[in-house]
């Protein structure tokens, strides 16, 4: 892995030397290009300041904060159940998955555990939000690379998943469904069969995207070898999720830690890729979406009966203590370090969001690439601005 990194670095230095010679002869000068905060490719309001030499990037620096909402401060004036409404808005495409680690942290401090059925449904909804989130990524990937058709397929098929989430929780984007000690409600009648049908559709969608994009030579030439993140660099920057697994690190928090969730109750596979380039990251996400549909199906097969809510006090006071819970969210590792002082609300919540770490690698990664590669790399890292700025 390091060899690729070195080669990339060497090629960059060599090209810089060659360019410098030409530049002295022709008296050219660089140009600072300001990509964003409003730009079609920044998924929100990320701003990237790039110093260009022709089309090559000399250095690039992301500048975030255009959407900073101060959730860490706001949690200090909320009660524990109210916080889920806030954290819903962090990664707004996979909202339910944001609630789960916070609720788990609170449950851990209170030393309670949700009943099995609630754990199963949580896991199912968690995976559904992953499918909804990543399927949009797969479509958007095409747009970033210039192919407009996949995004419409993604929006079409994501709708089925959103309908499922709405059916179960009442909210399409911000369910706010998870409660300390369980879930707000049980699943509605007919939901399970509907979900099975939709999972088949989503697998078809994955095949479609694979045929449309991943088999395309132009797509491969645009993504292969672009934005290579070697394994040790990925670890140092705290990359997580598919970005880390694409660099060859076999680590999935769903499998590698014990949480009161249902992932360890069924059989599934963690996908890794050795290349660490943009293609690997996109490919991992495609495989994971497909894998998620299987997880959901298998969980539906083994869905236990019983209550969805354990006994909790009506007014929730969380005992004093500190808890760290992180889960493998659609974007990567999402964790909450919750400090409670035995109050109605948390004393301090540190929100560790995946995109913040994933994007902090951008200045390192963008050196020496071309302008179109900026877009490819950003798309393949897959960030959501709410997840960077919180």
């Amino acid at each position, binding site marked *: 892995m390091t060899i690729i990194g070195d080669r990339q670095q060497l090629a960059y230095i060599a090209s810089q030397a060659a360019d410098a010679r030409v530049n002295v002869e022709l008296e050219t000068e660089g*140009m600072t*290009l*300001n990509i964003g905060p409003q*730009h*079609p*490719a920044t998924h929100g309001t990320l701003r990237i300041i790039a110093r260009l030499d022709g*089309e090559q990037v000399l250095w690039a620096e992301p500048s975030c904060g255009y959407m900073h909402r101060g959730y860490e401060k706001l949690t200090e004036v909320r009660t524990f159940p109210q916080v889920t409404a806030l954290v819903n808005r962090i990664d707004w495409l996979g909202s339910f998955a944001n609630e789960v680690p916070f609720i788990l942290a609170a449950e851990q401090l209170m030393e309670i555990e949700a009943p099995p059925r609630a754990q199963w449904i949580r896991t199912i909804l968690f995976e559904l939000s992953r499918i909804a989130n990543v399927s949009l990524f797969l479509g958007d990937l*095409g*747009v*970033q*690379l*210039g*192919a*407009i*058709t996949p995004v*419409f*397929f993604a929006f*079409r098929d994501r709708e089925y998943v959103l309908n499922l989430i709405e059916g179960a929780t009442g909210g399409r984007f911000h369910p706010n469904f998870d409660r300390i000690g369980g879930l707000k409600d049980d699943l509605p009648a007919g939901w399970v069969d509907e979900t099975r049908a939709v999972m088949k559709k989503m697998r078809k969608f994955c095949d479609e995207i694979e045929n*449309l*994009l991943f088999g*395309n030579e*132009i*797509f491969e*030439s*645009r993504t292969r070898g672009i934005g290579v993140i070697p394994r040790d660099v990925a670890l140092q920057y705290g990359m997580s999720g598919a970005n880390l697994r694409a660099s060859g690190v076999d680590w999935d928090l769903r499998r590698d830690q014990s949480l009161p969730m249902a992932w360890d109750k069924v059989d599934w596979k963690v996908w890794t890729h050795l290349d660490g380039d943009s293609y690997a990251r996109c490919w991992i996400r495609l495989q994971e979406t497909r894998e998620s549909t299987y997880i959901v199906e298998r969980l539906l097969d083994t869905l236990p009966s019983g209550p969805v809510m354990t006994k909790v006090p009506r007014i929730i006071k969380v005992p004093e203590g500190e808890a760290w819970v992180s889960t493998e969210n659609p974007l990567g590792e999402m964790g909450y370090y919750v400090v409670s002082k035995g109050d109605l609300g948390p004393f301090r919540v540190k929100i560790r969001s995946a995109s913040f770490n994933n994007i902090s690698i951008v200045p390192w990664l963008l050196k020496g690439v*071309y*302008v*179109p*590669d*900026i*877009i490819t790399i950003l798309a393949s890292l897959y960030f959501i601005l709410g997840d960077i700025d919180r």
Partner: protein
Amino acid sequence: MFALLSSIPYWGQTILRLLGGSVAVLLPAGTIVYLFLFKMMSFMQSRLGPMEAGPYGSMQLFAEVGKWLQKEDLMPERADKFVFKIAPLVVLSSTFLLVVVVPFGPDAWITNFEAGVFYALAVSSVSVLGILMAGWASANKYSLLGGLRAAGQLIAYELPMILAVVGVVIQAGSMNLQDIVVAQNAGSIFGWDGLGNPYLLTQFIGFLIFMIAVQAELTQTPFDMPIAESELVSGYMTEYSGFRFLIFFIGEFATAGVFAFIASVLFLGGWGVPFSWFGWTGINDVDNWMNVGGPLIMLTKMLGLAFIIMWVRFSYPRFREDQLQRFAWKILIPISLVNIVATSVLKVAF
């Protein structure tokens, strides 16, 4: 041959040709936009497209034009005002100049001169000037990058396009587009003249190269870096709005139509039907009704080719700038050179 023409006075011919030229530019643009951009793209993307304005949204075009005409004509403060204003006109005028040499029937042509192919290829590069002017005059970095990309790309793809056409010229033995049409329709394949001899069959490699180069010339999707909406916002068109944007828009699709016309003239037999069907032997035998039937045949062929151009546009991702240059210089140009050599050898041999 000139039976029909000679009965019309010269001013009448001029008006007819002006009208015909406008129709030949605007009609394909409108049809391509409606049929392909609105409807085909929507169906490919599992949606309906415009449905409200007129039956099946057929009036949508006029609604769009009306919308653009109403919009404010914005101009960046630091733009080079004069160049900024005329840039879209330069692009559109290159389209009009291009359609001048396209024959639509035995007598339905605007000019008919010997170096038609040469002229068409030369005039098509005028649009590069307009794009470069737009990119430079906008005083916008995205526009500048887009304009420079366009210049590099259009020049790179001019060459394979010319080289691909050279094969046709060698085979037809003429640079006159009318003669090329006649040569294809009057020709025969190993003595069988049921289909004429469309150069699509004999110059298939040339046809492929020509279509790829056309795709690049039109800056349609695998080669749309000058516009590249996910990178450069809208490339050289970023700062344009209202009427001037509309001109760029018409120019884009009208040029697609005209290039499809030229491709159908060069490779698909143009306006003609195989002459043997009606027992014609040369252009002088062709009946007058072909002056009406010819344009219709051309339109059909044009739509077929535009369909392919748009189909590729809607399905493919975009190349990177350096990959595009590599593709032109390292793949297309060598292949087209080999094609020319092979054509000349075969031409001499047969």
